[in-house]
């Protein structure tokens, strides 16, 4: 199955984190998620949220106006 993509563009923090949190709640451990954002605050916030909740950041691709973050859902702490 293809990796789900969460469109969090044009949302300001913490909304991209909240949308990620809500999407991950409906996913299983080991699943991966791609999050598209435009608020550069996500570069700190989504990894911090992942660390707190036991998920893994796979990559962060930061362009001038868009950031794409891939993460793997963890087992939960």
């Amino acid at each position: 199955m293809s990796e789900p993509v969460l469109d969090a563009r044009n949302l300001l923090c913490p909304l991209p984190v909240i949308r990620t949190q809500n999407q991950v709640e409906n996913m299983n451990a080991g699943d991966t998620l791609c999050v598209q954002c435009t608020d550069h605050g996500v570069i700190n916030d989504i990894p911090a949220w992942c660390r707190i909740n036991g998920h893994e950041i796979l990559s962060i691709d930061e362009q001038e106006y868009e950031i794409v973050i891939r993460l793997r859902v963890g087992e939960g702490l």
Partner: protein
Amino acid sequence: MTKNSNDRTQRKAIALVSGGLDSMLAVKVIQEQGIHVEGINFFTGFCVEGHTHAIRKKDRDKPKRNNALWVAEQLGIKLHILDVSEDYKDVVINPKHGYGANLNPCLDCKGFMVKEALSWMEKNNFDFLITGEVMGQRPMSQRKDTMPVVSRESGAGDLLLRPLCAKLLPETLPEREGWVDRDALLDFSGRNRKPQMALAEKFGFNEYAQPAGGCCFLTDANYSSKLADLWQARGEKTYEIDDIVMLKVGRHLRPKPHFKLIIAREEGETNFLRGYRKKYISMNTVSHSGPISLIDGDADEEDIELAGRLVARFCSGRDADSVTVNVRQKNGESKDIEVKPLSPDEIPQEWYV
């Protein structure tokens, strides 16, 4: 009585975590008593750090972090961030206890948040709630006479424990049941921050968010006046999330009661406003370099010409005889108009919101 002496189960508390020092300390005080603590944080739409991260390009280089997430990580607790922005509208529009110095409904807000946290607590089988409130620290929600109002009206009652000033308040259920030791709680009061700073040092917290007049835009006079202007122009107290985000972006000028212009001040704001061109009529100068502008309200041809002349004042052709302005409708249709920029004398100060 020692903690958990009557129960075999691990007691669990949900803490309102704002990202500031007080809630950080309150969590730590309760963690020290062997309680499992998780944090809850609310997105109301007016959260300062929510809006300010990335709009202005000049702010890109500033350190960006969500303080609530950062605090949770320092404390080793989970943080649940809830989007309450829809339900929160009623708090802002119809505050039972009124507003503070600006459009800040602090007492209703605190009651709302405690009520939301109580609901979360019940759904997730936690035992009690904690906040970082300090008696006498805030003029509306943290007074001796209003703190019981929050407990009562939220429905939390004696499930709400304020560890930093608990000794100044009646005993709560977690204290009576011996889940927490009242003697190890605190009696902080007033606006003096030294006790908090001393406790932070004791806990080894070398870094924490400094209090900066609250974490809510509604305590800001300029922001509140823009929101009041929005309500006055619409003839009713309503808003959507996009409205309240827009109040933080650009210059706002209202040449007529039924429309205003939002004019980007720099490249970052231009890029941000560009994302809203399907929701607003937008304008940008094409004969000269200049910022993008949005029209909020219903503007007819005459209004659009006036708006064009105003927009032209903020472009590099402000002293030219004629400036070409592209006017783009929400459906993408656009046309160019030729306008003479307004002179400074033609822009009354009252237009600035």
